């Protein structure tokens, strides 16, 4: 490298060196806004290697050589969760796949100085170049408070930029500091309890033997972190058993003298920060924002109105994803059909056209069709987050959700799963506890999503009588409602059971209720776009591949049409050709109808001979205890790509062109299908019920699996999810069908 070769000018090293800047801060301090201001639109969203924590980075606008990394929000450097651990590891350069940081920008909510400086002073103690951003200065001023920023900067020994990030105030100053010469950190002056201080000095000497490159200040700061945190200490058990033992010994010694070392830092730091806050603050009144917040909260968190408003908002969001998105989805659907039509006319008939249209374009369509729902859901979720309502919803619902082992944060994702599990799983990102988040993701697909609706509609329409029994309420509506309730109840039960099997630190609940703020439309917009991008790129790839595989399964092996059908084809085509134009319109129309019917018969025959038809027959013995014959079984196999596919697949099997869930022809076929041996009706209401129960519970959606894989960063949980849900579905259908038979309902 350059350093070992004296002839290489050192300037080239500087020219290629990327400055790495991390943005740290408490949640709700405005970190994301500062990050967006610095990086503009060029952002990369990925994951830290091996974990599910999101990694957001970009470059300073106009400076490709300055990388900006948005760290997860954290209240202290005493990590309690996976994302806080990442923040700690990033700041202390413990991440194996990341280069060390050059500069830290710590975003501080100036309206809540004392508590926000807790983290800031912990970072300063590490002795890294640090810039403090005092954000939300407008709210401070509105509250009649004046902060002595120069004094604060002197006390902390770090440059301070006052900002109103939402209005870009102070952005230029921050930009100049970020690209300017690195500040040299000063020393914070708070005192540790003497006994703990001595222990820390001893540990710092031990650490020096392992890593001599660190400064004494940094060593002391890290030793304090390790002394206080089991999470951080665990890391040393393998890295240096002797240091691990030294820390254990130090803890034991302090315990034996009954020194509460765990509290030493909090007490020492806060008593110093309390003085600092008093010295730099000129007047102290409750901020205006807080008063407005209290007034809003007295309604939004009211004993009666609170839950009512919450439910209404939830219905609104639900309605948006459920029905407002429909016109856009239809539009996309029409666009896909149009594209398919164009490709069909341009390309010669044959395998390439089939692959492109039925495989590739249909596959892309399966992905893009979800986009409107995702955009709508994330518009509302970002809006709620941006205004501060999201925390309130968790506050209202925590008690209910805790009963089943979830927490308040699970409410929004679970409710949005009624529309679609894919955006719902993406929405769990706002949850703090990794364990609660995993649990929520695992049960989300049990909520009846909109893709189940076509299946519900088809089978309810065909087998449940349309009669009403109480006012406008009929058996069909009641069945539909019961299916939704059934899915929800199973989701709650599954959560309670799974909670016992998933190990992990018992989560604790601590939620900040930030003041209400006007929404930041830009941030709302960017969150929406970001989620859409993640979905299209990450999940899209997997869905795409599965769709093409499914197409191959339904198309190959190519079946040789039976001679009977072939000869009918030839007969109809010859007669059509012999009739001259305009001569016998009625006969031509008749023949064309016949041709269409032949096409349908042919594709039904093809389906039967295809890999999927073959599979359907193969699993028939397994499925027949549930009341499903090979045709339904083949339909279920296709539905594992996406549930609604079964409607079209059954249409193909029963040779009805363009069948949809409203198709009367398909309903009649299902009602009248006969067992070839006994001649009795093949599908009874009991079979329909069994199938419906199967669809409520089974995880038949490659998109869900793909997004779960992306969010949980491994195939382990999606596989577990698929196995437990499909097992549950089989069991429940078995009970319904066999139980029904025993009761003589067959």
């Amino acid at each position, binding site marked *: 490298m350059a350093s070992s070769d004296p002839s290489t000018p050192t300037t080239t090293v500087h020219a290629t060196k990327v400055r790495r800047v991390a943005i740290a801060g408490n949640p709700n301090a405005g970190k994301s806004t500062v990050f967006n201001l610095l990086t503009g639109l060029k952002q990369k969203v990925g994951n830290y290697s091996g974990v599910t924590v999101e990694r957001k980075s970009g470059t300073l606008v106009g400076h490709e050589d300055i990388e900006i990394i948005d760290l997860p929000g954290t209240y202290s450097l005493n990590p309690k969760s996976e994302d806080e651990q990442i923040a700690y590891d990033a700041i202390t350069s413990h991440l194996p796949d990341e280069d060390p940081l050059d500069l830290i920008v710590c975003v501080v909510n100036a309206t*809540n100085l004392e508590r926000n400086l807790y983290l800031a002073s912990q970072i300063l103690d590490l002795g890294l170049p640090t810039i403090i951003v005092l954000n939300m200065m407008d709210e401070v001023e509105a509250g009649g408070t004046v902060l002595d920023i120069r004094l604060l900067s002197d006390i902390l020994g770090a440059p301070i930029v006052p900002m109103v990030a939402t209005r870009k105030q102070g952005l230029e100053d921050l930009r100049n500091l970020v690209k300017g010469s690195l500040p040299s950190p000063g020393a914070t002056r708070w005192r540790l309890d003497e006994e703990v201080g001595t222990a820390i000095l001893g540990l710092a000497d031990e650490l020096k033997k392992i890593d001599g490159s660190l400064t004494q200040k940094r060593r002391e700061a890290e030793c304090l972190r390790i002394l206080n945190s089991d999470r951080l200490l665990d890391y040393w058990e393998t890295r240096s058993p002797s240091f691990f033992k030294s820390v254990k010994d130090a803890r034991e010694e302090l315990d034996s003298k009954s020194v509460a070392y765990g509290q030493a830092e909090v007490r020492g730091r806060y008593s110093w920060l309390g003085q600092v806050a008093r010295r730099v603050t000129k007047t102290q009144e409750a901020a205006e924002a807080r008063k407005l917040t209290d007034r809003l909260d007295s309604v939004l968190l009211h004993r009666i109105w*609170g839950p009512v408003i919450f439910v209404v908002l939830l219905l609104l969001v639900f309605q948006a994803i459920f029905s407002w998105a429909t016109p856009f989805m239809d539009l996309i659907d029409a666009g896909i059909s149009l594209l398919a039509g164009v490709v069909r006319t341009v390309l010669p008939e044959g395998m390439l056209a089939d692959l492109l249209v039925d495989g590739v374009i249909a596959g892309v369509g399966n992905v893009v069709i979800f986009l409107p729902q995702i955009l709508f859901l994330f518009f509302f979720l970002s809006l709620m987050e941006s205004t501060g309502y999201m925390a309130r919803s968790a506050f209202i619902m925590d008690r209910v959700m805790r009963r089943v082992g979830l927490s308040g944060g699970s409410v929004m994702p679970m409710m949005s799963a009624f529309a679609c599990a894919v955006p719902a799983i993406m929405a769990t990102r706002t949850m703090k506890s990794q364990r609660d988040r995993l649990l929520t993701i695992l049960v989300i697909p049990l909520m009846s999503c909109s893709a189940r609706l076509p299946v519900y509609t088809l089978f309810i329409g065909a087998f449940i009588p349309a009669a009403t029994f109480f006012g406008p309420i009929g058996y069909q509506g009641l069945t539909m409602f019961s299916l939704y309730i059934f899915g929800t109840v199973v989701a709650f039960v599954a959560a309670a059971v799974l909670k016992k099997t998933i190990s992990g630190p018992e989560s604790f*609940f*601590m939620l900040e209720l930030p003041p209400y703020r006007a929404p930041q439309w830009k941030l709302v917009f960017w969150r929406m776009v970001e989620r859409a991008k993640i979905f299209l790129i990450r999940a899209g790839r997997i869905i795409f591949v599965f769709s093409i595989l499914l197409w191959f399964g339904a198309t190959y092996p190519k079946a040789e049409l039976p001679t009977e059908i072939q000869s009918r084809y030839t007969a109809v085509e010859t007669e059509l050709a012999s009739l001259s134009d305009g001569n016998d319109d009625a006969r031509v129309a008749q023949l064309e109808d016949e041709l269409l019917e032949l096409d349908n018969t042919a594709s039904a025959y093809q389906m039967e001979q295809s890999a999927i038809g073959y599979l359907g027959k193969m699993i028939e013995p397994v499925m027949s205890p549930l009341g499903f014959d090979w045709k339904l079984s083949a339909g279920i196999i296709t539905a594992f790509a996406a549930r609604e596919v079964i409607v079209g697949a059954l249409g193909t099997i029963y040779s009805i062109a363009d069948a949809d869930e409203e198709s009367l022809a398909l309903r009649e076929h299902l009602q009248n299908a006969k067992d070839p041996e006994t001649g009795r009706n093949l599908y009874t209401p009991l079979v329909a019920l069994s199938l419906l129960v199967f669809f409520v519970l089974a995880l038949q959606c490659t998109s869900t699996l793909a997004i779960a894989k992306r969010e949980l960063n491994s195939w382990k949980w999606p596989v577990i999810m698929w196995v437990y849900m499909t097992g549950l579905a089989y069991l429940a259908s078995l009970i319904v069908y066999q139980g029904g038979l025993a009761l003589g309902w067959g």
Partner: protein
Amino acid sequence: MTLDQLEPGRCARVTCWCDGISDRFMEMGLLPGTEVEVVRVAPLGDPIAVKVKNCQIAIRRADATQINIEAS
């Protein structure tokens, strides 16, 4: 008296802590000697919203029983 027993709108001072409660609450500023106010109770009675160091945080009643206070 423990924090869960404090009525909404009333202030108190934290006196001491029971073992086994997360030190995160302390890092949020709920440490001995600090003023706390119970601002409101969730519609279903749990959790409660407390104000500490000019900031509102929601904590569950089960955790609040671990925090001893004296009314001021």
